[in-house]
């Protein structure tokens, strides 16, 4: 009896720090999700409180759109090229090279276009946003806005969120179209698939529902990633273990990592509704 009590006591002693850690982490995650949801909700509610919004939306469209366009074009072309190359070799095993257009177009429209375009935009516009807001938090610019009676969510976050709803689908469309062209380049020009066959397969394969899925995903990824990046930058001072410039770099890293993960999770959830 005494031996079993000692054994039990020992097990509790060994595992209790682990359970304590697990409990703390779980609570932190729940708190984080709740706080992030409140942040995003507060930002959308601040839409009516923000004045002279159009100019800042245009500036945000420039940040997320024009500035990021070269990356989208380059990654789009190479994604199409690689898909064309890999697809051709797989399909040629079954003598179905004629389906290359179908493979490239459906891969791009349904999955690779929205996901890769979102990841590229996170890497460029999202990280820049997190760093900018982190510095503004560190140098008391956000507090200054609040003391002036300016709604900081309305001024700093709302234009970026609205812009993301517009820019992410547009950038995704550009990515997909450029990807089609990349696929045609490697499939038709380099590997000898008939160009007419390729493009007619593309035309036949992509249906309205695929386009709808693509744009819904792009818009959802835009809101999720931009609000995650804004949230991380906005609260760059929350992590007590690092301060100053290191807090900004830590928040930027968190912004990129979390928003990339969220995009992939959201991709799975949205795909499961459409498939």
């Amino acid at each position: 009896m005494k031996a079993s009590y000692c054994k039990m006591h020992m097990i509790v002693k060994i595992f209790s720090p682990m359970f304590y850690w697990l409990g703390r982490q779980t609570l932190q995650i729940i708190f984080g999700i709740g706080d992030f949801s409140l942040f995003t909700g507060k930002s959308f509610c601040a839409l009516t409180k923000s004045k002279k919004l159009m100019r800042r939306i245009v500036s945000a469209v420039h940040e997320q759109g024009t500035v990021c366009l070269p990356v989208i074009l380059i990654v789009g072309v190479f994604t199409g090229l690689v898909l064309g190359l890999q697809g051709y070799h797989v399909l040629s095993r079954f003598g179905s090279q004629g389906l290359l257009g179908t493979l490239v177009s459906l891969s791009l429209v349904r999955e690779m276009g929205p996901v890769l375009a979102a990841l590229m935009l996170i890497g460029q516009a999202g990280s820049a946003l997190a760093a900018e807001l982190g510095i503004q938090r560190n140098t008391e610019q956000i507090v200054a806005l609040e003391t002036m009676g300016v709604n900081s969510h309305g001024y700093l976050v709302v234009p970026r969120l609205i812009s993301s709803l517009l820019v992410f689908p547009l950038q995704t469309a550009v990515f997909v179209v450029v990807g089609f062209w990349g696929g045609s380049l490697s499939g038709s020009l380099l590997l000898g698939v008939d160009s007419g066959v390729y493009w007619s397969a593309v035309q036949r394969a992509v249906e309205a529902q695929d386009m709808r899925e693509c744009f819904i995903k792009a818009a959802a990824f835009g809101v999720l990633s931009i609000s995650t990046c804004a949230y991380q930058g906005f609260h760059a001072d929350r992590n007590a273990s690092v301060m100053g410039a290191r807090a900004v770099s830590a928040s930027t890293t968190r912004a990129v990592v979390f928003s990339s993960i969220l995009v992939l999770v959201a991709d799975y959830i949205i795909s499961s509704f459409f498939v």
Partner: protein
Amino acid sequence: MGTPNQNFALHVEDLHKAFNGKPVLKGVKLGVPQGSIFTVLGPSGAGKSVFLKCLANIVQPDSGQICFDGLELTSRDQTAQEEFRRRCSFLFQSNALFDSLTALENVALPLEQTTDLTSKEIRRRSLEALRQLELQEYAAHYPAQLSGGMQKRLALARAIVTHPELVLFDEPTAGLDPLRRNAVFAMIAKYQRQFGFTALIVTHDVPEALVASDRVALLNQGRICFEGTPAEFSDSTHSVVSDFRDSAAALQRSLAEIRQGIIVA
């Protein structure tokens, strides 16, 4: 708790604030007369900046009452707080200027976001504020392209452009040399007379504050231990006041003693 005196622009009663169980403000009581320059002096770590941040609603006090022109700011009444923010400006120690906006855009920002003025009127008022602070030539410059003194003036231009009734200054002379310190206090006094706002300054620069202020208070260990006119401060025999006021003389005495070898390390 009594009704705040109507002659006070700002009335603070029994203000308490603690961080992680450590009290910083322990019942601060203060009345700032309308249209005056009121300076809160105190050594570093006395809680001056926390006190000012409680007034500006950046930090939420644990208990106590803050009244501004009849508005109770500690009641969590959103309307009262919004009205206070519309009628009050805060000048940060670091200036907190928007580094990606030009001087003109910095000054125009509060007007753009908190008023319904036309773009033309906002531009006119912003340029006027810059002109009053002798910065009109630098309207297109970014804050990083301006000197420290100019940045301070730009921050003041942004603070006064909304015609506030109360301006809170957080250590406006921190890190400046004596000449620039004088210039900043002269600037505050000049524009306070010109615009008629009530100025509440926290600083530890005693000589300049005594010259420029109408009233001074000394915050020590979270409590106001003196409040009166600069003349009363100079004549006070209160031990904390005299220690703070005569710190230069005390240093002189210490150095003399060291030189004479009286103090053994």
